[in-house]
């Protein structure tokens, strides 16, 4: 009797994807303003009463007494979580302060905006975001 021997090859393919876990460091000042900065090549120096934050794109200076906290944030597309307690219109400005437009909410703004740095403002929050 013939036997058909089947050999099954197990192929294990390991696909590795890299994702930047927390690409933004956000700074919240006492007035509720949130400033987002990319963590690429980010350094922070304390100069007198100032915290000078520099990354590959910009330098931001904070008065230390105005700082409330800083925290890592996952991505700009999730920026709506910052506004999760709010709803309503978001005003968008370029980093140079040029008005871009109003959007129904933050997510809608992020879907529409081109790559670049923007300031998003709601009634109670201001945040700088990088759209990638």
């Amino acid at each position, binding site marked *: 009797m013939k036997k058909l021997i089947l050999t099954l090859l197990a192929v294990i393919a*390991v696909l590795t994807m*890299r994702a930047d876990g927390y690409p933004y460091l956000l700074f919240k000042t006492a007035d509720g303003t949130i400033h987002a900065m990319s963590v690429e090549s980010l350094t922070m120096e*304390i100069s007198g009463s100032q915290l000078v934050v520099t990354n590959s794109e910009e330098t931001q200076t904070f008065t230390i007494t105005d700082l409330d906290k*800083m*925290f890592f944030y996952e991505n700009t597309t999730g920026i709506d979580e910052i506004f999760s307690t709010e709803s309503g219109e978001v005003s968008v400005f370029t980093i140079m302060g040029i008005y871009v437009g109003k959007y129904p909410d933050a997510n809608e703004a992020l879907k529409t905006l081109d790559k670049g740095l923007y300031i998003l403002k709601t009634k109670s929050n201001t945040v700088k975001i990088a759209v990638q």
Partner: protein
Amino acid sequence: MAAFVLTIAARAQTLNVNVGNVTYKFPSSQTGDMTYSDGSTLTIINKEFSLDEIDGMTVDYTSVTDNTVEIGYNGSTATITVAGNVAQYLTITQEGAHISIAQSDDLAQEITYTLSGTSSDGEFYMSGSYKATIELNGLTLTNVTPVYSGAAVHIQNGKRINVKVINGTTNTLIDAESGSQKGCLYVKGHAEFKQNGTLNIVGNVKHGIKSGEYISVKNATINVTSAVGDGISCNEYFLMESGTINISGTGDDGLQCDLDGDTSTGMTTNHEDEDSGNIYIEGGTITINCTALAAKGIKSEGDIYISEEPAINVTTSGNGTWDEDDLETKAACGISADGNIDISGGTITLTSTGSGGKGMKCDGIMTVSGGDITVVTTGGLYYNDGTNENLNYTGDTDQISNNYYSSPKGVKAGVKDTSGSTTTYSGGMTISGGAINVTTSGHNAEGIESKNYLNISGGEIYVNAYDDGINSGQDLTITDGYVYSHATNNDGMDANGNFYINGGLVYAIGASSPEVALDANTEGGKKLYINGGTIIAVGGIESGSQLSQTCYQASSVSGNTWYSMTYGSTVTAFKTPSISGGGGPGGGPGGGGYSMIVSASSTPTMKSGITVSSGTGIFDNNCYLNATVSGGSNVSLTQYNGNH
């Protein structure tokens, strides 16, 4: 069948906070809110930083392993890297390459401290109350100007401390001569040495390695090349499972273990909560060379257990000395236990060359059931009355206090204590297996001595001694085994109690009259009983013996001559040692040769001058069992009645 595994690896960010030479590394996934307060502090995972002390912060993609601290020594400084998750629990201070880290009592996870690099003036000091791991990962550290401790590494932490000598690395620690530390490497708690690296130790003030509690060694190679005190000293117990220990250049003992408290727990299951002062050697290689006065190679306040297959080689060369505290002499010894010694395996080589030096001794019971033991002592009798010292005293020790001399001996067990008119005996010796080879050549040096009973029921014992080959303070009983005991200046075997030979093969050679091959304390009303076994007694036996097994006297005996004794179908061949002086048959020593008494389970015949072609060699091949022999001439044997 195909399986696909999809892995998504996040490129994790790390926030590095630099404070002096310390970098605290906080994984972005752990930081949460990092709060600023009053413009003066920043708190990250409960670690509060004064902003004044922060030199800078960066974010990068370096990895962080939780619960780790890495210290890299570099000349006169050192860099310290701390995992962010434990930063809140650590207080770090630093002066140059002198590092101190205090663990908070709130710490509830084990931290691994990895030390590497080189400094010619540095130290590592860590305190705390939670167990920790110290990794020696290619560390060369010399402490010259102590800041926190004179030790090179000082762990002021009473918990379990893993000391991992990282595989393939060589680490060298040298402590400060100006310090008051207890050890070059000091661990307040219990130290467990692991991994396959090499650790070199120089102890400039006291011990090389000192642990306040137990020490265990597995795999690591530890070389103590110099120590003012002991090479390794610990309390509770010492356990060697494997690895290598080399100790030399010590001012005191090689390896010592003491009780931590006042009362011994004895051996406990898995050594749980044990405080016994015991030493357990179950594997590995130990080589110790002690040169100090009265130094012990391996010394325990409790028992010493040697089992399985360790290789132990101890040499002591120090002479005896006068102990001002105890007002008595002390002498060197290869292995010494205040309690018992139990040997069931291993290869043990002990050499003592100093005056009064011993190979192995215990105050309790010595039990040998296995192993291969070789002991050589060459020192003479040590005398010191507190004023006068004599390294080779040859006077009559019966006329001087026991406190004034130390006799060299191969192996000794038990204690005889005389107080007024009362004498008590404790300890003893039981040999049921293994191979014991003892050679002593110094004045007054006995081969094997038990101050109490001595029972031999197996094994192979081969003794060549200056004084009594084998001596017991009380009864000596042989039921089996192979025993060779040759004394050049006293009895071959001597029982201060009764001497029972019930079995085994006993080959004893005594010195010239009045010494004999087999002696019992007849003067004290004791006797030699020959009830069985195969016996060859060159030099005669104690008169008045009770011989329930018939003994025979050879018509002659010569030195350096091969003999065969045949009884039934059994042929035993043996060679006599070189003997001088001596006597004629029947009258003990004198004339042209010693008397020789033999006995066996059936009537023997004897030949001299034979040639051995095969057999099972014992007694360093001075005897062959089940031998095949040829040639030779008959030796007349006449029944011996027990009296000279």
